[in-house]
């Protein structure tokens, strides 16, 4: 018998399409007669459009329409149920709320014509002075009403008493900068109307959100809006919420009576689909001499826009992770004339960085090893909810990670380790992120007369391996070889699924597949035992096993019949659809160890080694889960060392809206990354023991790098990113 389809490093089912260029992303949709739209965006950050000269643009060759707030039809602003957070639609009035806001849309026969005509538009503004610098507006900080992760002022225990009981108290202030997702695929929409029916080829992490937003914007019933997304070229949160360009593309397509393709430019993506808001964080940690935490107080202040106040950098690590009886977490907002933020891969990374850096400072203050300190405060219970984790093997992650890394060889004294002219630093941190706790998903399982299964669900393939892993899950439950199961996604005609976000796909879509496949299997078993001439006739259904495409008697595996024969003799395909069932909150954890080398002359920090050992519950596919862990580490390197979006403090414009000013890690920035997994099922998981995992591995890496830099140079750089100028300044101050 073949081994279970679960856990194996099964090669991606969509891999051949991706390496041959056959995979079609939104902007690749082959739509006859498609025209091209280009956004004209605001050059001011605050004020109003005072005049528009459109004649030259309208008469330019190939132009089909120039749409401004004076000519664009009125649209309904989609609401939060559509994950539309922006609370306003641009090109509907003359108000400018941030630089880069669309003020016009030009449609032409070709992209070149649209782009050229857009340059002919003359927009005049009445500009007001924008406020865009967080540090200058800290006095305006306020605590918004409960948001994405509950109340923004959280308290357990008695924090004052906790600090009074502490032998050591460490207080730190750190900042993390404005950052952008920079998925390699810029968001794209191809909108096509047939009468009052709209089909949209969309680059989105949530086709259901896009469908809802378009229904609301145009007042259409669900059956009139279809969203199709076979592949997504990276999302990382940029494509989770719905943004104006999707609605604008559909609106202008209706106006010109032709299909319209709108692909954001790289520069557009810096103001069109959210960002990781800048944070300012103050963290106080108190502990007894032996390292037991007595109190944590964490105040995080972050930017929001003028039009909404959702906070996307959540303090969940502070509230949930460590056993500490007295915790206060306050999440504050400062309104600035910048675009609306969004979730960005591992939204808990910014606060995790502050917490894990503070714990490193505490370990130095106490003289307790950083691993020991974390082991001392480990908990098997979510400290915020009080609910015990289904499983939590974090202690094994610390031990296995330390062993692989050679942590015991570390001289704990900062600045003590050198290799030639380079300063060597070793640091570690805990990785932890919520996973799931979101709406569920449905799936349809169809077993055809050939005995193979097709599973459909309205989820998305954002690169995490959903198509592959969900086929494995279906195959496991049904007892089919993995290659006899096809998983189809990315179409709102399929059962609804939660967005590919929040590390929720495995529990949400996975459990939907498990429920539908379980019921489909029961029907096939029922048909087999009812089949008078069949080999399993009369066998109690609970004694029938399924594996490798066969049904068999549990203790007589040779007495068997193939799926194909059962369904064929039944005469009709078996089809079962599961309904969405909300999934419990999971918590996926790990331990990350990093070695850095610092050049004391140039201040350059290079990450030399990363070791990460994680507990994602049961591993569904060793290859795809490993790739997610590696990807998280690469994001951690960018977050900590290179990535920051610079905004002109006077004009409010992004001055690095590209990939040469904003530095995402390149191949040469990334060392070998050693990844390990505990791989034990979480009994609380509704998806074969697997938890969501994608956002966990970036956390931990950031603080581990920062802690390693401190270990190397003896100075803690608390304002990210840790760039060469800051390292040189720190080293100069010491000398």
């Amino acid at each position: 018998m073949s081994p279970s389809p679960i856990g194996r490093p099964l090669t991606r089912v969509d891999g051949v399409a991706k390496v041959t260029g056959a995979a079609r992303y939104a902007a690749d949709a082959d739509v006859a007669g498609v025209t091209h739209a280009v956004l004209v965006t605001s050059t001011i950050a605050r004020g109003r459009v005072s005049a528009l000269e459109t004649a030259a643009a309208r008469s330019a060759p190939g132009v089909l329409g120039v749409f401004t707030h004076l000519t664009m039809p009125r649209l309904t602003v989609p609401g939060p149920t559509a994950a539309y957070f922006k609370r306003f639609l641009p090109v509907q009035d003359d108000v400018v709320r941030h630089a880069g806001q669309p003020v016009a849309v030009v449609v032409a026969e070709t992209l070149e014509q649209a782009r050229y005509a857009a340059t002919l538009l003359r927009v005049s503004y009445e500009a007001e002075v924008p406020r865009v610098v967080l540090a200058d507006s800290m006095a305006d900080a306020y605590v918004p009403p409960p948001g994405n992760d509950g109340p923004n002022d959280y308290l357990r225990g008695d924090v004052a008493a906790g600090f009074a009981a502490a032998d050591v108290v460490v207080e730190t202030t750190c900042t993390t900068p404005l950052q952008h997702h920079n998925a390699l695929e810029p968001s794209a929409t191809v909108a096509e109307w047939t009468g009052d029916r709209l089909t949209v080829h969309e680059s989105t992490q949530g086709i259901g959100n896009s469908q809802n937003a378009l229904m609301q914007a145009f007042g259409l019933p669900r059956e009139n809006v279809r969203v199709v997304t076979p592949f997504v070229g990276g999302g990382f949160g940029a494509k989770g919420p719905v943004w104006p360009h999707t609605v604008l593309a559909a609106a202008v397509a209706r106006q010109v009576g032709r299909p319209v393709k709108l692909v954001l430019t790289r520069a557009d993506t810096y103001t069109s689909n959210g960002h990781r808001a800048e944070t300012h964080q103050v963290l106080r940690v108190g502990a007894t001499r032996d390292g037991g935490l007595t109190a944590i107080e964490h105040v995080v202040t972050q930017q929001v826009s003028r039009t909404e106040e959702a906070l996307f950098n959540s303090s969940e690590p502070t509230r949930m992770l460590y056993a500490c009886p007295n915790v206060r977490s306050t999440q504050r907002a400062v309104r600035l004339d910048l675009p609306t933020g969004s979730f960005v891969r591992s939204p808990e990374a910014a606060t995790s960085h502050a917490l894990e850096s503070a714990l490193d400072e505490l370990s130095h203050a106490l003289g307790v090893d950083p691993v020991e300190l974390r082991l001392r405060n480990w908990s098997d219970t979510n400290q915020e909810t009080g609910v015990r984790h289904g499983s939590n093997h974090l202690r094994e992650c610390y031990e296995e990670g330390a062993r692989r890394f050679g942590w015991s060889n570390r001289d704990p004294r900062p600045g003590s380790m050198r290799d030639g002219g380079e300063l060597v630093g070793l640091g570690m941190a805990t990785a932890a992120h919520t996973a799931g706790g979101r709406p569920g998903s449905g799936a349809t399982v169809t077993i055809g007369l050939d005995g193979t299964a097709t599973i459909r669900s309205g989820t998305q393939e954002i690169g995490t391996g959903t198509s592959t892993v969900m086929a494995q899950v279906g195959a496991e439950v049904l007892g089919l070889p993995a290659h006899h199961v096809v998983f189809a996604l990315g179409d709102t005609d399929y059962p609804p699924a939660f967005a590919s976000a929040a590390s929720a796909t495995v529990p949400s879509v996975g459990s939907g597949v498990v429920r539908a496949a379980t019921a489909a299997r029961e029907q096939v078993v029922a048909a087999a035992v009812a089949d008078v001439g069949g080999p399993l006739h009369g066998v109690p259904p609970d004694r029938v096993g399924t594996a490798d495409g066969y049904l068999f008697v549990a203790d007589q595996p040779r007495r068997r019949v193939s799926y194909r024969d059962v369904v064929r003799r039944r005469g009709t395909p078996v089809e079962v659809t599961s309904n969405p069932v909300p999934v419990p909150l999971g918590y996926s954890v790990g331990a990350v160890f990093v070695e850095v080398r610092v050049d004391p002359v140039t201040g350059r920090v290079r990450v030399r080694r990363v070791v990460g050992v994680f507990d994602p519950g049961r591993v569904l596919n060793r290859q795809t889960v490993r790739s997610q862990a590696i990807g998280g580490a690469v994001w951690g390197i960018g977050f900590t060392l290179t990535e920051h979006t610079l905004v002109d403090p006077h004009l409010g414009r992004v001055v690095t809206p590209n990939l040469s000013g904003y530095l995402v890690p390149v191949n040469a920035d990334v060392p070998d990354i050693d990844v390990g997994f505990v791989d034990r099922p979480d009994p609380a998981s509704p998806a074969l023991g697997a938890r969501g995992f994608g956002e966990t591995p970036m956390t931990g890496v950031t603080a581990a790098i920062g802690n390693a830099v401190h270990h190397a140079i003896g100075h803690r750089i608390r304002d990210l990113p840790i760039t060469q100028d800051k390292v040189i300044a720190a080293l100069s101050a010491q000398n």
Partner: protein
Amino acid sequence: MPEEEPPSAFTPTRRTVLKAGAAATAIPLWPREASADSTVPMSLRVNGKVYEQVLEPRVTLLDALRERIGLTGTKKGCDRGECGACTVHVDGRRIKSCLTLAVMQQNREITTVEGLAGGELHPVQAAFLRRDGFQCGFCTPGQVMSAVACVAEGHAGSDDEIREWMSGNLCRCGCYPNIVAAVRDAAEELS
């Protein structure tokens, strides 16, 4: 830049320059004068097949491939030569197709990701698949084309050399270690 490549692969010949100049005369000196008929016929040889196109001279090779010829495997990530998603081969050399005009690439052999595989996957494609050298797949056509050239140039001699010579292709999913492994495998197989 590799030294062993024939000069013709690098240096525009006098004839090419003249041709490009002749095409360029079709562009009005000031773009404001552009009109609907400012197009020129051009012949592009892509993956061994000739495509006769009538295009404005300002059309990039990338947009010609994607929007006119319909070869959408080549991707646009930044449109300014920073990400490498649009990497194709022109006369065997890897270039960023967003940074060149289609009209400049006539009478050359253009190879895109669609032209790499014959009946079966090219060893580089097979290695990317085996090593999971991608996640979302959007940068992958550019990575694969760059990797084929990287091996052919002789820049895959060590992991560090691969990292350096593959650093013109960004991967935001962060698959770099797997990409290095794939290029290493392919270099061994192709040597």
